[in-house]
């Protein structure tokens, strides 16, 4: 089990135990974390799973995948340098303790 921390815009933190292999988007949905919609189910079509990876974790999480850039660019909340689509981040042991921040809006 790998711990993921979602930080809402008001600063409130939700810690959940994630299953390795799941995406950070699916983990949020499975744990009723508000602020992530993931409407396209992880197909990189909707940009409603935007998260801003905490600076401290940016390197470990890694760069955006092919095609992610374009979607993030048009997202409801202006992307920041560490913005990612959470459906494209796979939970794995070295991400234990990962902190991601939720954007103001997904839609």
């Amino acid at each position, binding site marked *: 089990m790998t711990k993921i921390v979602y930080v809402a815009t008001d600063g409130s933190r939700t810690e959940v135990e994630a299953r390795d292999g799941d995406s950070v988007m699916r983990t949020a949905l499975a744990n009723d974390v508000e602020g992530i919609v993931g*409407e*396209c*189910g992880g*197909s990189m*079509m*909707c940009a409603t799973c935007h998260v801003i990876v905490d600076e401290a974790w940016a390197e470990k999480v890694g760069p955006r995948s092919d095609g992610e850039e374009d979607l993030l660019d*048009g997202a409801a909340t202006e992307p920041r340098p560490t913005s990612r689509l959470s459906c494209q981040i796979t939970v794995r042991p070295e991400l234990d303790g990962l902190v991601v921040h939720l954007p103001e809006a997904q839609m």
Partner: protein
Amino acid sequence: MLGQLDFAPLDEAITIDALTLDPYPIYKRLRAEAPVLRVKSVGRTLLTKAADTKHVKDNPALFSSNDPKTPMQPAFRAHTLMRKDGPEHVSERMAMNASFMPKAIKEHWGPLYERLAEDYIGRLPRGETVDIFKALCGPIAARILAHILGIPEATDEEMQRWSQTLMDGAGNFGWRPEPFARTDVANDEMDRHFDAMVERHRAERGPSAFAIMLNAERPIPMSQIYSNIKIAIGGGINEPRDALATIIFGLLTETEQFEEVKRQGAWSAAFEEGVRWVAPIQASSRLVTEDTEIRGYRIPKGDTVMTIQASANHDEELFEHPERYDVFRAKNPHQAFGSGPHHCAGAHIARRTVGQIILPLLFERFPNMTLPDPDVVQWRGFGFRGPINLPVRLA
């Protein structure tokens, strides 16, 4: 192992007419008794549970959209992205996606759409009873789409006629010649109209879908640019039109909620609940590429399954009193926009135009609108559904 499983039961009683008039009681029974059912009149295996419709949409390798042999091909005179999968689908969709994203709506379209909405709503006669479905829902949906696609000179009438003609052709599973004769005429008209816009879009490089596709670094072929615009015309008018009419009906028949929505400005929630309650696109088809199973039934390769998102949105496992329009339900994980790679490309536009611009403006101008006789409102549609008339009193 699959060999030991039974095929899904076969129904020979449900008719397309019954599904067109009032499908919801039928789906309620199917969810309880036969959530995987081969329906003879439809010629497909109907899936009515939310978990199953989502499973199918999220697994495009097993449940494919790729089917060049549907009436869509002659109707659009093209194998369109709606009926493709994989990288081809992604590249054609992404070619126009930027104009449909929240950023483009905020930066480019928002102010224009507010003006258009003010204009169209401003023309409605106060104190009279009008069929708002005809007077507003269709025309404004057509106007908004014409701009975003980059064909603003197409009239509301043309846009609506092209759209309906394309949809009738795409749904012509009886392969009768007349609907294709009509789509031929519409295709010629659209092609001429698009031809006349090309130079202007190359010069102006605006934010419309047409301009973005033309001016891309590595543009997709012109034939695909045209078929993309046609797909958006065919699939981009009746959904926002029907969603708007459905939401107006919902609010005017649930007067307590209507008051609360106005008080809170809860228009986005009113929108989400409207598309859950009566999903404008009720059903979609997918071709099965490998033998598989759903709920213990054998689903053979080559079968066509039909996901009924109308029913998924009423699944008792996810929604309390699903048959009721209830803006303030705690959670609303509806599938009105689908899921997976074919997730509705117009979802962001619909949410912002209908939910954040048109509804608030409409009810700011007519806060005391009423529906004098809800019983005269007729609902129609199996694949696509909404009211076909909506006589409201504007006050």
